[in-house]
């Protein structure tokens, strides 16, 4: 286990979150929001962001007194052996489904937008091999890859959004409240789990060099990712309008197919590699989270040997649905909806139990001493 022994610093850690949450604006997450919140999806996102601060803050608070534990240890410690394990297994199930469904969507994007003749399974195999390899190398490698590529990825993304903004029309955002206040709030409530990644960060909490980095990194990344997705949602509406936005499956890719930079018309080939690198980092990280959690629950020390098994599982489950283009987005939306209350409530409960147990008192008195 020597490869995963080392800890990562705040830079790598923040870069990982920014890439794994930031890339959500390029898959079908915007479409999920547009489906019900229409052109006001960005208002929903503001609500989601405000709501998400609560669980993230509680989570950080709980970890402040249990700095040596990861999320699974903490679950067992706070909820007891049986319930703690159930919660952890549930988390594993959701984490694994997220890995399968999200990767299936990425494969669908690649095979329907870029490599139309390549069989999906071939793309899937390549994607999973790359990400599985990344996960096997461990958090340090994922972190340094993320940090190395972060600025290139964000700058190209900014470029794409800027050109799209120039092509779009700001008036298309109106009517401001789109489908009505209630729909906006409902969307925010049911889809707030798009930031559930922050909850899963607890799994790697002890692998970050200090608790201060863990806390600061999470909030810095959050403060970057929210405006980024917000901007993207608004620009998609400005470019495609509320009617087309519902029928377009992957607005980001439709956008880079449409824009042209000066005399260069087919610029999607320029953005594609950057996007792919971000996707690799994201799935390597998800893969790693699943590995660690699995290892922790079933007490498997050498969890890198799980990589081939999980890879094969991911591929088979991913290509299993008969018509992936319809079933996968439906399943994903369904998962987001179920995960939302859990993402909101679990950290609150954790904090509550910790409070009742008096964990925070020890901390404050320890600090005083």
């Amino acid at each position: 286990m020597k490869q995963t022994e080392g800890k990562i610093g705040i830079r790598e850690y923040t870069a990982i979150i920014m890439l794994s949450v930031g890339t959500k604006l390029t898959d079908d997450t915007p479409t999920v929001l547009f489906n019900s919140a229409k052109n006001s999806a960005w208002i929903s996102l503001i609500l989601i962001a405000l709501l998400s601060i609560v669980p993230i803050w509680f989570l950080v608070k709980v970890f402040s007194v249990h700095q040596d534990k990861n999320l699974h240890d903490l679950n067992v410690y706070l909820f007891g052996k049986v319930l703690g394990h159930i919660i952890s297994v549930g988390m594993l199930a959701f984490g694994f489904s997220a890995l399968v469904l999200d990767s299936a969507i990425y494969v669908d994007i690649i095979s329907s937008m870029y490599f139309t003749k390549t069989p999906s399974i071939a793309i899937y195999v390549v994607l999973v091999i790359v990400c599985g390899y990344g996960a096997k190398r461990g958090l340090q490698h994922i972190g340094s890859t993320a940090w190395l590529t972060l600025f290139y990825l964000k700058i190209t993304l900014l470029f794409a959004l800027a050109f799209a903004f120039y092509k779009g029309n700001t008036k298309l955002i109106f009517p401001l409240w789109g489908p009505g206040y209630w729909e906006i709030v409902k969307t925010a409530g049911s889809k707030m789990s798009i930031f559930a990644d922050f909850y899963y960060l607890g799994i790697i909490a002890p692998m970050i060099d200090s608790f201060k980095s863990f806390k600061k990194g999470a909030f810095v990344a959050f403060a970057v990712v929210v405006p980024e997705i917000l901007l993207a949602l608004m620009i998609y509406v400005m470019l495609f309008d509320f009617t087309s936005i519902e029928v377009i499956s992957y607005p980001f890719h439709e956008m880079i197919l449409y824009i042209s930079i000066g005399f260069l018309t087919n610029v999607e080939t320029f953005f594609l590699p950057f996007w792919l690198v971000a996707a690799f980092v994201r799935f390597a990280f998800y893969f790693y989270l699943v590995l660690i959690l699995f290892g922790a629950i079933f007490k498997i020390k050498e969890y890198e040997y799980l990589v081939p098994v999980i890879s094969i599982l991911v591929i088979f489950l991913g290509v299993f649905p008969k018509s992936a283009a319809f079933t996968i987005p439906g399943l994903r939306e369904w998962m987001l909806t179920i995960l939302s209350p859990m993402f909101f409530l679990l950290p609150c409960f954790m904090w509550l139990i910790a409070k009742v147990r008096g964990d925070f008192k020890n901390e404050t008195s320890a600090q005083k001493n």
Partner: protein
Amino acid sequence: MKHQLKKIKLLLALPFLIILTGCWDQTGLDDQVFVIGIGMDKAEEKGKINITYLIANPEVGSSTQASANNEEAMMTVTIQASDFISMRNNANSVIAREISYDLLRVILVSEELAKEEEFIRYLYTSEKDREIKRNVHLVVTKEKAEEFFKKNSPKFLSRPHKFYENMIGRAIQVGIVPNSELHQFFRITEEDANAFLAIYATSDIEKEKNKYRISENDAVAGNVKIKGETNNSQFLGAAVFLEGKMIGKMTGVENRIVMLLNDTSDVSDILTVVPDPFDEDYQLTVRITKRQNTEVVMDVNSKPPRIHATLPLTIDVLTDPSMSNPVEDKEKIEEVKKSFERFLEEKAMKVVTKTQEEFKVEPFGWSLYARKEFKTLREYMDFDWMKTYPDMKIDVDINLRFGKFGKQPKTPSYEGIRD
């Protein structure tokens, strides 16, 4: 031992080289032909259309001249097909290589097909194909698209992709044709509130003398007499689409007015003529530029709803054929300004009335301003912009400012020279 392990590892990495070739989608440039334009015409059979490919020969006009000196720069193929996508294979019975839409620039539709209800079914297949980009321009041709492709033979720019790119790009800049990207077509058609304008073109030039129009651009393609040995096709004016179906035409000048009033257009270089207020025999050439966005004030609650649009224009007066030197005289300038404003307002109102009475739908993008007046989509939909538009009270104001008066503002007086 360690050495050997390294070798084995290297061997294991070798299969990854296969991945580098780009899997199944790898195609060499040599194995593809590039379609620059697609033409759509009505077919006899229901559910089918005649599709024409305009295919560029990449070897003509490039630096590898030696190999292809005598080959044609382009060719056309017409086959009856159900859509653009199946056509790819149908065409392979005569074309030796794989057909690629990567460089597609224009989709041409004959006026005949554009006026059909069915037309939209065929055009929407282009949204499904990944290679057909949303920045392809839609052009309506008076004759069959197939004929247009055949007759259109530019004297220079024989490479077709350059021709269409430059021809359309320039015509949009000067405002005689609209910017008709497919993206706008889809957006406007789906929003269901405005009219979409497509480029109008033809190579079928009127032969009868009385069918020519007087003013240079106040005509649609085919009605302007141009002598000389130039290209025999014209791009001028606009085809008006309502709900994905062509319902009328606009002349080049009318299109310019629409482009000026509509903020989303990028018309940047308008030279036109305005009657000279001092001598009715002559006309002043002016350059019109838009200072800023059109200011639109509307009252959607009054019955009928009211729109007041103010168009801020800067006008450079470039000629002075009556040689009356308005620059020197404040009163004269004021008079010129008033007459210009009156003239332009009249012209603009004429277009507005035409859209209200003839088309019953507006191409100015004013519904976008109206959106701000509503809180939710439902309220906006219930208002039903398209139904209300013909009854609205609209007036257009021109807020005019003078820019330059040519390179040299003053001219000697006519009488001074002639005495």
